[in-house]
């Protein structure tokens, strides 16, 4: 059995430190999720309005955010805007900002998709039954949209958690950075620490995301 560097994980506070690092990444992604879901619902509903200008502006926002890798967006906000506008952004604020902007864009597209997937006759039948516009939404459209939307938005949450791993690149001390520090600190004692520690980080992310994906899958099957 070769030395896999797993003993480093059990040494001192190392595992706790890794978990703390993971918590920082999760906190950032969850903050962004909390911001982007309501904002995305609002923008997505606006995208189904008939006003062409509103639609064009929102479409442009969506496409710009979507075409760029999230890493590029992070760089633009963290290095670009701080220089252009002269403000001072911490890595954490910059990442929350970027992930909220990105999450809002993705969420709005999901909402738009769910809304337009409801056939027109659903609206019309509601009106034919004498329901008012608010009632049509309250009793017919929103329940159906909700069912289609929830699994998709849960998937978006896992995507956002996975994407937060990028914040390492703008210098936020999160789980990967902690892993590097641990490996560096134990360089002499256990030269193979990189294997065990990165494996642990890999599994930590998996443990964070997998139950959420499973839940989304379960809902998708149940509500179909």
């Amino acid at each position, binding site marked *: 059995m070769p030395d896999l560097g797993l003993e480093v994980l059990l040494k001192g506070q190392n595992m706790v430190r890794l978990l703390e690092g993971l918590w920082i990444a999760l906190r950032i992604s969850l903050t962004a999720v909390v911001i982007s879901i309501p904002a995305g619902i609002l923008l997505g509903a606006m995208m189904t309005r008939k006003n062409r200008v509103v639609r064009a502006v929102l479409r442009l926002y969506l496409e710009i955010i979507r075409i760029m890798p999230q890493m590029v967006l992070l760089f633009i906000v963290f*290095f670009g805007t701080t220089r252009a506008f002269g403000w001072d952004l911490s890595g954490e604020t910059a990442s929350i900002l970027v992930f909220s902007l990105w999450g809002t864009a993705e969420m709005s597209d999901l909402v738009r998709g769910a809304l337009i997937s409801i056939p027109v006759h659903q609206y019309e039948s509601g009106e034919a039954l004498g329901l008012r516009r608010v009632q049509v939404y309250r009793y017919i459209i929103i329940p159906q949209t909700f069912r289609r939307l929830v699994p998709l938005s849960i998937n978006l949450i896992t995507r956002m958690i996975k994407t937060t791993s*990028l914040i390492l*690149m703008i210098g936020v001390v999160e789980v990967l950075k902690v892993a590097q520090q641990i490996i560096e600190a134990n360089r002499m004692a256990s030269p193979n620490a990189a294997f065990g520690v990165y494996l642990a980080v890999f599994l930590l992310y998996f443990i964070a995301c997998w139950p959420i994906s499973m839940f989304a899958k379960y809902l998708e099957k149940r509500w179909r």
Partner: protein
Amino acid sequence: MDWEFIVQHIPLYQEAAWLTVRIGLLGVVFSILIGLVCAAIQYFRVPVLRRITGIYIELSRNTPLLIQLFFIYYGLPKIGIQTDPELCGIAGLAFLGGSYMAEAFRSGLEAVSPIQMESALSLGMNRRQTMGYVVLPQAASISVPAFIANVIFLLKETSVFSAISLMDLMFTAKDLIGLYYKTTESLVLLVVFYLLILLPVSVCGTLLERRLRYAGFGS
């Protein structure tokens, strides 16, 4: 805006863009291969192998590429598997993309209703003809949107390669920002080069999607 700086550094970005495109393309090609194999295994319910691909798909879909790359690049050499960064990048992208492609193909295959297969069989086609003329064409056209989304997603994911010291676009931009403090110029070049790579793919994808939309039945 320092135009001279921009013009001066275009070749540097060009080189980096080639690297990004090369790794991205190879990664996508291998993802498609892995995806096809995994989707076939899942669709035909091959015993044992089905379990393994299931585990692989869950592992790869629920972890970030950056972590996968760190493990491949820094972790695996400790147990004697050493490769150069470019190969690591391709392997990482294929590991991630394989599962996404598998899901796209599998959902396409499963979306073809069993009636289609039964009808073909009752018309006297053998299994190969049924797959080749009835199931696969429909499944392909259904998986196209997800497939294109995956290609764009994978090309975007290449932006994390700078973490394993590949001199890609991100790396170049970061390097120039660090060296000359020409932040705006470096970032403008970065955005322009990513657009040059991603816009054509995105436009072609949309066109392809439009052309194939009517290939399936009933949708």
